[in-house]
């Protein structure tokens, strides 16, 4: 067996197939966060953790049969997204994947620009734009956290997968089953909304 069949992304595939607990813990540690993000995108915040817990049990049971035709990541994402979709049908609670008509941040509307496309209301100066300095402000962080929580599901998922989990755009399209342009628009809107939190905080000292 070639080496890449045994070790994939530093995971012990042979141990996993043998349902070794240590190897399985490694798998959970590596992918749990991303699994929760995927589940949230499909079924929403309240049920995501539960679906992921169940998905881990299914994954564990199915590991001896994992043939390695796809990468293990793709395989576990398929399992969690299928279970989330099944649960969604059961709950018969439709969580809209389409939030493209959602409020557009002002930077992406005409209101901040003049007829010629130049700034009429340019970005305000910040006291500091150094991330290190901004991170020292607990109140600002609280404002950002609140906004992040309230983002539409797809925007939040895309933002977390891209900017926190550092997944490539193509991978995000696959995970969330949305188009490349939808991913890019959602990501940009999420970032801009978060940036406007800092704008507002700099101007008013409040969220």
């Amino acid at each position: 067996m070639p080496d890449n069949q045994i070790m994939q992304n530093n995971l012990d595939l042979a141990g996993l197939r043998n349902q070794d607990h240590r190897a399985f813990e490694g798998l959970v540690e590596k992918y749990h966060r991303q699994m929760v993000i995927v589940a949230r995108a499909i079924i929403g915040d309240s049920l995501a953790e539960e679906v992921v817990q169940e998905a881990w049990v299914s994954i564990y049971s199915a590991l001896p049969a994992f043939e390695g035709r796809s990468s293990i990541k793709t395989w576990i994402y398929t399992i969690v997204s299928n279970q989330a979709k099944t649960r969604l049908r059961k709950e018969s609670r439709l969580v809209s994947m389409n939030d493209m008509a959602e409020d557009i941040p002002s930077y992406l509307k005409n209101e901040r620009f003049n007829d010629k496309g130049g700034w009429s209301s340019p970005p305000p100066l910040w006291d500091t734009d150094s991330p290190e300095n901004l991170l020292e402000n607990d109140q600002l962080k609280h404002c950002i956290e609140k906004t992040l929580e309230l983002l539409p599901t797809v925007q939040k998922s895309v933002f977390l997968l891209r900017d926190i989990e550092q997944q490539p755009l193509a991978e995000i399209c696959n995970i969330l089953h949305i188009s490349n342009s939808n991913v890019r628009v959602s990501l940009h809107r999420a970032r801009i909304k978060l940036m406007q939190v800092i704008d507002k905080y700099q101007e008013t000292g409040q969220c």
Partner: protein
Amino acid sequence: MLKCNEIANLASDYLDKNLSWKEYFSVKMHLFMCGHCKRFVQHLLSTIRVVQGMERQLATTGETENIVACLPDKNQT
């Protein structure tokens, strides 16, 4: 020549290097000459870095232990 409102729309694709070489270069030229747009892109990048800095671990060790504790017995094959 790109306009400021176009830069505002392309800023994420610019930061992600998700533009054709020609578009990328056009944005770069605009930023070279336009202080407001330069600030806009800088603030957008700072915002991303700030949220990255805030990243909280969702999968704590405790959570992994819980998942492992709830596993069924090994498949009997």
